């Protein structure tokens, strides 16, 4: 019975996700609230969605690595949300140069190694992204990524992991979100694809979410979904499901969703 319920939920979620994916294909036409680095090759949009009542502010970033399509596709879909309360800030395609090239690295190497804790970010693009963080002062930051393989199984891979910062309830929320996804999204017959919570990020590495931990001492998460054995649309839907659940735990929900 439980299995049947899981299967139906998974099917419904994926079917709904496919519909959203199709609908989301037109999201490029949505106008951003503002752009960072306008009139440069790095120019990219920031989408700010304000709820009808006060609440927390969350920021979602995708496309830090240009070849991680599920991250920026999921973030692009989230950018189209209307939220019930609080504020949602989405930077879906952080590294336009890398995305255009379909490469991990952009014009100045790996963007996610340019955010040292306690210092100014190292490049113009990294400073502009951190400027968005400072401007909106988010209570939580999500950074959406894609991995080649599965953490612990495939060499140098970090897939199916949710890495929380060492701040607030991030670690507990990451654990609960993993459990939620494993119960309702990941089929029981794909046990290696179950999400897990990673070690806490503490600002010790020059990554965006590490800097959120080190400089702001706020909850933040790196979400990694593997491309191993998952088709492109499923990666997007699972990545979005993780982000949706984490945002919900921090009080940000898509209007109309419960």
């Amino acid at each position, binding site marked *: 019975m439980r299995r049947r319920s899981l299967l139906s939920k998974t*099917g419904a979620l*994926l079917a709904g996700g496919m519909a959203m994916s199709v609908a989301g294909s037109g999201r490029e036409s949505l106008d951003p609230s503002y752009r960072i680095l306008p009139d440069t090759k790095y120019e990219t949009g920031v989408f700010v969605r304000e709820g009808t009542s006060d609440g927390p502010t969350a920021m979602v970033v995708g496309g830090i690595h240009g070849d991680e399509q599920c991250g920026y596709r999921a973030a692009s879909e989230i950018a189209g949300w209307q939220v019930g309360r609080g504020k949602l800030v989405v930077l879906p395609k952080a590294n336009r140069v890398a995305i255009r090239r379909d490469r991990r690295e952009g014009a100045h190497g790996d963007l996610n190694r340019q955010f040292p804790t306690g210092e100014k970010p190292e490049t113009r693009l990294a400073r502009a992204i951190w400027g968005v963080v400072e401007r909106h002062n988010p209570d939580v930051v999500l950074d959406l990524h894609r991995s*080649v*393989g*599965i953490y612990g*199984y*495939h*060499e*140098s*891979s970090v897939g199916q992991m949710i890495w929380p910062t060492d701040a607030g309830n991030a670690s507990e929320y990451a654990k609960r979100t993993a459990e939620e996804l494993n119960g309702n999204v990941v*089929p029981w*017959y*794909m046990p*290696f694809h179950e999400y897990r919570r990673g070690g806490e990020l503490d600002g010790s590495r020059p990554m965006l979410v590490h800097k959120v931990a080190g400089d702001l001492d706020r909850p933040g998460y790196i979400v990694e979904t593997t491309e*191993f*054995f*998952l*088709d492109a649309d*499923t990666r997007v839907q699972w990545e979005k499901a993780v982000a949706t659940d984490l945002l919900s735990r921090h009080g940000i929900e898509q209007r109309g969703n419960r």
Partner: protein
Amino acid sequence: MSGAVNVRRLFLGRSVWVWYLLLVGPVALGAFDTRLMTPLALPGYVALTIGSAFGSYLFPTLELWVFWGPLLVGAYFVSVALAAASHAVRETFVAFK
């Protein structure tokens, strides 16, 4: 002559390919589109994941799709063994008739 026919049947007989399709078909479908993933794919899924895990440690520069190769080849030999076993079982039941 009969021996040659049996060897051919052992390695290329219809039951070998039926078993091969059963082993590889569901996992290939699941990899092509995750919505088509079913419990029937579990043996291939486990073999591919564990095989690629070992493979990625032994050959870290190789991309993971490369490990479909050993799966496809390995599944053939498993299919031969399963076909032989199922044939033996069938023969046993016939013998008891």
